[in-house]
């Protein structure tokens, strides 16, 4: 914006000497003064006309700036609206269950002495439900807060292969139990990347968790890294899992989109990944084939 503005005023600076030059152009001896006067008036007029135009363009630009600002603001509001209705939904469901369990406990209290085995069983069952629904709410709010707290990435040099290897080791044990192999295809001399390690760890972990969930049992996850030689490095997490149906592909990065049964997934994993990768200046994309598998690809700038 600033660049444009100074560009135009420089144009005005050229115009003034140009007009003066035109006005002082020799037009012969006879009537020269008259011509010179006419040219001067013309030059003056066009100068003011031009200045007026520039002024109008500037004003229009300012207006469009304000419009941009308004647009961003309304987009933000829309995003907040969407997010809060998502949060409301995800929290209201466990709350509804908690409320009902409390009412059921009250009913048990009023109608029985809680001496019988069956009543005691129902009583403790309700208590268990309440506590597990509280866990579910906590999972959502903690994930959101975790994400909200760390708004700005703290950039430092990262050895990507090692960071990824650490995360792979973290999920490997449990994956092995389900006969899921994690294969590492790391490029050896990968350049150091300037990025935010805790952020990246979270992204890799989310992708690995999704991959193991998609495979369930018996399959492989291949994590590869490579230098794209264009100032970017590429991380790919490929699984041999169930794949993503076409109609879901455009929704998977939306907050709260999940195909897991109620209470089992927040649907925040990929939207957090997307947000993080954007903040560290990278991109994340996905290709998937139903019943074959899914590959998530992250491209990160080597220097931000």
């Amino acid at each position: 914006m600033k660049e444009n503005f100074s560009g135009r005023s420089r144009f005005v600076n050229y115009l003034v000497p140009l007009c003066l030059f035109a006005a002082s152009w020799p037009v012969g001896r006879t009537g020269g003064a008259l011509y010179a006067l006419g040219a001067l008036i013309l030059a003056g007029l066009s100068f003011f006309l031009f200045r007026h135009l520039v002024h109008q363009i500037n004003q229009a630009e300012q207006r469009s700036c304000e419009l941009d600002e308004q647009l961003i603001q309304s987009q933000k509001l829309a995003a907040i609206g969407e997010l809060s209705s998502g949060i409301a939904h995800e929290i209201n469901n466990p709350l509804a269950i908690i409320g009902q369990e409390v009412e059921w406990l009250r009913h048990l209290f009023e109608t029985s002495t809680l001496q019988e085995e069956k009543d005691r069983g129902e009583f403790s069952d309700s208590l268990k439900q309440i506590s597990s629904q509280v866990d579910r709410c906590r999972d959502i709010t903690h994930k959101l807060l975790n994400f909200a707290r760390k708004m700005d990435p703290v950039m430092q040099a990262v050895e990507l292969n090692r960071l990824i290897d650490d995360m792979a080791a973290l999920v490997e044990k449990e994956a092995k139990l389900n006969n899921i192999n994690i294969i590492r295809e790391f490029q050896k001399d990968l350049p150091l990347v300037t990025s935010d390690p805790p952020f990246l760890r979270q992204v890799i972990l989310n992708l690995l968790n999704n991959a193991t969930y998609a495979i369930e049992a018996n399959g492989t996850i291949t994590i590869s890294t490579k230098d794209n030689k264009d100032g970017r490095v590429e991380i790919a997490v490929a699984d041999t899992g169930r794949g993503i149906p076409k109609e879901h592909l455009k929704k998977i990065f939306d907050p709260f989109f999940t195909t897991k049964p109620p209470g089992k997934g927040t649907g925040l994993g990929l939207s957090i990944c997307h947000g993080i990768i954007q903040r560290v200046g990278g991109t994340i994309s996905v290709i998937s084939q139903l019943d074959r598998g899914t590959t998530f690809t992250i491209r990160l700038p080597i220097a931000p």
Partner: protein
Amino acid sequence: MSSYKPKVLVVDDEARFRETLIKLLNTKLIEATGAESGMEAIEKITENKYDVILLDVRMPGMTGIEALAKIKKIDPLLEVIILTGHASVDTAIEIMKHGGCEYLLKPCPVDELTARIDAAYERKVTRTKVKAKTP
């Protein structure tokens, strides 16, 4: 009327929500059963008689809105109460389009729900009578 229990179908994909609500409604002299999806709800409605449907919006497979349209086609006199955790205005508008149903936000105390179900049941009885009188 006093001996008759309104028949209610609770459509929600959360098993525990469904089960406890059914137990609670049964203590309030309402005959409640459950369905875990829009598909199952439609099957049950075609096979059995219900008075009031409690319908969740966000469910895998068929959404509550889609189910609502189909339910109204099968039995226009059926009272539908949307019971959802989702507060979106768009959804509410979408529901209004299909007409003749209430919109309640979760969590909703069972007493309030029971009152709404009773009111919906009475509406249904009146509408059925009116329909029977008009030739």
